[in-house]
């Protein structure tokens, strides 16, 4: 039997959050953490978490699994159970709505701040805008972000300044548009980021890189943005 300890909090019932222990029989199978939660929800229908695609592409089920942020649907028990125990908490640093569901408003607000859409005010051609394979390759490792918030909620700089520091996810997306050969908004984008907090609160701790379930590297993207800001300033 596996001991599963889950963070519980229902604002209508509980004065404060607590950890609840469940016993779970995985029948020796290396199933995903999401499968465990689904089965526990049959036992206790009040257990609440988000989920959708169950294959690691929608970004719904980011949570803190035995101390590390990740997606429950692609985290097998073999990677999550430590000393016979599985500990599941909500992603840290943002307000909890209920159980494992966090309020992501601040996270999304930072995403919106970077103008996450292509800017190109030149008249569009009758077909697609051409882009070389080399230029397109510059977007690899950037566009795949699924907005799960595993990175930003693992970032101490984001914990301290979630209202002012864009955070790794938002900055990865900022660079996705800066790096796009079709985007003509570079100057305005950099001006929008040129303050002491938006980018420069990143201290290169690299928790974001360690936890990203898609294997992306926000720290590297932030480095590129820093370089661009410094070049623009000189």
């Amino acid at each position, binding site marked *: 039997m596996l001991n599963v300890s889950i963070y519980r909090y229902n604002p209508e019932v509980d004065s404060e959050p607590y950890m609840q222990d469940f016993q779970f029989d995985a029948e020796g199978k290396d199933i995903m953490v999401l499968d465990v939660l689904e089965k526990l929800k049959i036992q206790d229908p009040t257990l609440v978490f988000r989920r959708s695609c169950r*294959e*690691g592409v929608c970004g719904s089920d980011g949570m803190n699994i035995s101390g590390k942020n990740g997606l429950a649907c692609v985290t*097998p028990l073999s990677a999550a159970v430590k000393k016979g125990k599985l500990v599941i908490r909500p992603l840290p640093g943002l307000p909890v709505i209920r159980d494992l569901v966090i309020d992501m408003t601040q996270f999304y607000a930072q995403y919106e701040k970077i103008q996450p859409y292509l800017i190109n005010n030149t008249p569009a051609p009758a077909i697609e805008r051409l882009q070389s394979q080399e230029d397109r390759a510059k977007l690899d490792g950037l566009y795949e972000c699924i907005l799960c918030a595993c990175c930003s909620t693992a970032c101490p700089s984001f914990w301290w300044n979630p209202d002012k520091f864009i955070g790794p996810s938002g900055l990865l997306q900022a660079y996705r548009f800066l790096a*796009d050969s079709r985007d003509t908004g570079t100057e305005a984008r950099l001006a929008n980021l040129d303050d002491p907090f938006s980018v420069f609160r990143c201290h290169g701790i690299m928790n974001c890189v360690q936890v990203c379930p898609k294997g992306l590297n926000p720290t590297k993207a932030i480095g590129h943005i820093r370089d661009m800001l410094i070049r623009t300033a000189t």
Partner: protein
Amino acid sequence: MANIRTMTFDAVIVGGGGSGMRAALQLAQSGYKTAVITKVFPTRSHTVSAQGGITCAIASDDPNDQWQWHMYDTIKGADFIGDQEAIEYMCQTGPEAIFELEHMGLPFSRTEEGRIYQRPFGGQSKDFGKGGQAARTCAAADRTGHALLHTLYQGNLKNETTFLNEWFALDLVKNSDNAVVGVMALNIETGETVYVKSKATVFATGGAGRIYASTTNAHICTGDGIGMALRAGFPVQDIEMWQFHPTGIHGAGTLVTEGCRGEGGYLVNKDGERFMERYAPNAKDLAGRDVVARSMVLEILEGRGCGPDGDHVYLKLDHLGEETLNAKLPGILELSRTFAHADPVKEPIPVVPTCHYMMGGIPTNVNGQALTIDSEGNDEVIEGFYACGEAACVSVHGANRLGGNSLLDLVVFGRASGIFIEQQLREGIDLKDPSEADLEAALAGLNHLNDSTGGENAAVLRAELQTIMQNYFGVFRRGDFMQEGIAKLAALRPRIKNVALSDKSNAFNTSRIEALELQNLFEVAEATAITAEARTESRGAHARDDFKERDDVNWLCHSVFFPSDKRVGKRGVNFTLKTRDAFEPSIRTY
């Protein structure tokens, strides 16, 4: 009741996936007050899981490609019950819709010339089936749905669409004219119910693959729009037509794109034989999905399946080389390693046909207007009510959808619905307000659930429903089995109606949502079952052991399921093309 809050919009779209966000974008760009109600944050919608691409004759791979060839393939793929007018519109308008997405920033993969990369997909041909395999599916690696969905969300942010994220639509609100005047919706975070009033209500609620035990579909694909339409007394069309994707990962159900076979992968049985050569000598592994899925099941039934239980076949990719796989199919490598514990660079992926797509849905015209059928058998527009995407049956997929046509359907008809509603709004829409009783009616289901005492667990009932559908209404169907399945569903109905809701709390109560979703799933399942039993022929995805042949005399038509008396009617297929003579039904081989 009198104190229920009302929010008013010009247009409300239910569903934040590809078609919903494309419709919303169109309306928001024109300055109309537009809201999207979505039960998950928009980028969590199931469009995100689409992999291989979006099929469209943009003449990148082949400068001589023609949208008419794509039209021919689609009509043939549909086994001739797709509406030809709608297919013509989709294939002709497609390039414009694709280029718009590219201009919005969709990060398509590229050719050496810098154009959008296109790959071969099943059922594609040049020159009306006479010129060999075409490569017509536009791709962003194998993450096209993700790229498309994020691009559309970004476009909507730019145009300030109102998003009611994590809100669940409960039921349609109808006025005394039987016109739709919005929806009753539940804010999942707070539990508040709100009447969202609108001059145009668009259902972009996606599919319902979760009626089956084994599906590529996300947990959220529970047919909420179909459930709401049926409860409102509106019919659904061709709902017996369910696509089983040939390559779901054995055991997990997760999708492995047809693009794998497009890039040169192929299926083998336990003897290592490339068996599709026997079933489809020309197209082989790129025959229509229904054809490939049936061939796989036959291989398994005849004892040539792989694995200790002989219950799957293998998809072989290793001969393509690591470099190609990393460049073209990076997401598949990830999924296979995670869910099949197989590294496609070195070993084959265990795959099995898995429920994937609902060809049927709410009947609409090319403007997205939802239709019902009057007593004389004529189409009648339901005022105020629209549908697009997988929830709709416009019908471009007929009895079998071609790979890559789903994303095209989403953007073309999401856009078309938006354009038409814009025009209607400009001309002025005047619908009667609903009465208190009308609002009350849209809350009845929720109230019943909230009052529940006892009853059975939603997850347990759902599993039972899924097992019935899987066992009695799968890849191969037979009348006597289906009658048994229908009887089992009938017995399940009262139990699902009385599903337990032990947790009555308001804040983010996902038990309540799952109970409501279960009721929607049931409506879809029952309509599927009754209609499948009624269609006494084999066509496209609907394959019957007791009626093995296509019957064009009796069944070259849409089925229409009427919920009030659970009757199955027929509706003519549109054979009127604007640009040429219609394609007459012919024998469908690959």
